[in-house]
């Protein structure tokens, strides 16, 4: 019985991709064993289970490995039908969720590092791009939350919420490190109320990396990047 439905997650404390999968498992109430990987010294288990990318997260279910967070999230939704669904039933709504999850991931998340690793004009340019994309997201999700957002219940947290939290859940940390407002309730009121509502949910709040630890990490990354470019 112990071997049936055995779930193992190979992860790293500061990986937003890993956080997505952990949050999904917790929301669905799926018990799992967590294995922290040292990414500078990858375990033979990781190399065995993800020979293609050699990255985390890797979900191992009944001995079968899966990689790539968006693939894993859909797998979790299709395999554990008890607990809240991560995607709606309607194909068009599912398409919207997938589209915006891809947008948050590719258009926003992938431009964020440059904001941290640069200053002056380069940083201004990167920030401008991020703010433009946040505006597009603000506009785009009006169809998903037609009545605005006040409260989100635990069982209504879905795939797009999970991806959004994995990227912008720690927005207060980013604001502290950068010394500016990233999610402004006046510029992007829907995004602000969305994140606020999600962070009220205990399991979501607990999924964030520890505040001080992340501040320290990001400050280090920033200093390191700025030092190497000014050499």
């Amino acid at each position, binding site marked *: 019985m112990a071997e049936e439905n055995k779930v193992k997650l190979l992860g790293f404390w500061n990986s937003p991709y890993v956080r997505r999968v952990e949050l999904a498992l917790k929301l669905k109430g799926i018990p799992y064993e967590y294995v922290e990987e040292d990414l500078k010294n990858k375990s033979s288990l990781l190399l065995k289970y993800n020979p293609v990318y050699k990255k985390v997260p890797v979900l191992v279910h009944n001995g079968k490995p899966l990689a790539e967070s968006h693939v894993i999230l859909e797998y979790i939704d299709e395999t554990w039908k008890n607990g809240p669904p991560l995607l709606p039933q309607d194909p068009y709504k599912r398409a919207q969720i997938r*589209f915006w999850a891809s947008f948050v991931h590719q258009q926003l998340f992938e431009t964020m590092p440059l904001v941290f690793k640069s200053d002056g004009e380069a940083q201004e340019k990167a920030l401008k791009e991020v703010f433009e994309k946040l505006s597009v997201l603000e506009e785009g999700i009006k169809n998903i939350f037609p009545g605005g957002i006040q409260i989100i219940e635990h069982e209504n947290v879905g795939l797009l919420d999970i991806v959004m939290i994995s990227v912008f859940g720690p927005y207060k940390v980013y604001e502290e490190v950068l010394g500016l407002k990233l999610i402004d309730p006046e510029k992007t009121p829907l995004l602000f109320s969305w994140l606020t509502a999600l962070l009220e949910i205990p399991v979501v709040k607990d999924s964030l990396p520890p505040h001080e630890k992340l501040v320290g990490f990001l400050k280090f990354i920033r200093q390191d990047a700025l030092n190497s470019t000014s050499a």
Partner: protein
Amino acid sequence: MAEVKLIATTDSLFCARIEWALKLKGVEYEFIEVDIRNKSPLLLKYNPVHKKVPVLVHHGKPIAESLVILEYIEETWKNNPLLPEDPYERSMARFWAQFAGDKCLWGAWEAAKLAEGEGKVKAIESTQESLAFLEKQIEGKKYFGGEQIGFLDLAVGGIPHSLSAMEEAGGVKLLDAERFPSLHKWAQNFIEVPVIKECIPPREQLLNYFNTSISYIRSLSVAKP
């Protein structure tokens, strides 16, 4: 007023994937060709976020991003399923579809567009390593989907055709038959399937596109003072 419209161009393999899926499922659709270089108003209306093709419009509602569209088609028209039933097998199809795009197609583009040098050699090596993974997936199978064409065949389908044109335009050899015999055989079979053949962009068009893009990109690096 067609119920299903496909906003597309005839020289895009991403658009071809959608046509293949619709035809395999016997879905009637209206093909609406747009000029992406001149940002046609139809494109701005139906895909304001990315302003790209393909866009599927069903009952007036637009869906963009080719893999998102494929999933929508699969979920809406349930005949001739493209994805397997088993969740793990479905995940594998999705995983390899993403991999093929990211590592094989874009990797090949990197290798093709660079002028001779260390960067080009590295890009070629890396792309061939990725192709080797794909070769393993098709070994001993008629299609990636098994006996029938599936989701992964559609996702990978345009790649050999694209690669062939990229190879000629960029002066590289990537998908050679000796190193990748199974992939080669699959590619040749796939392209002969009637519904596939009728939607594939003509090689001349692709070659033209890559020749122009590559000349432009290489001229930029030469023009540095």
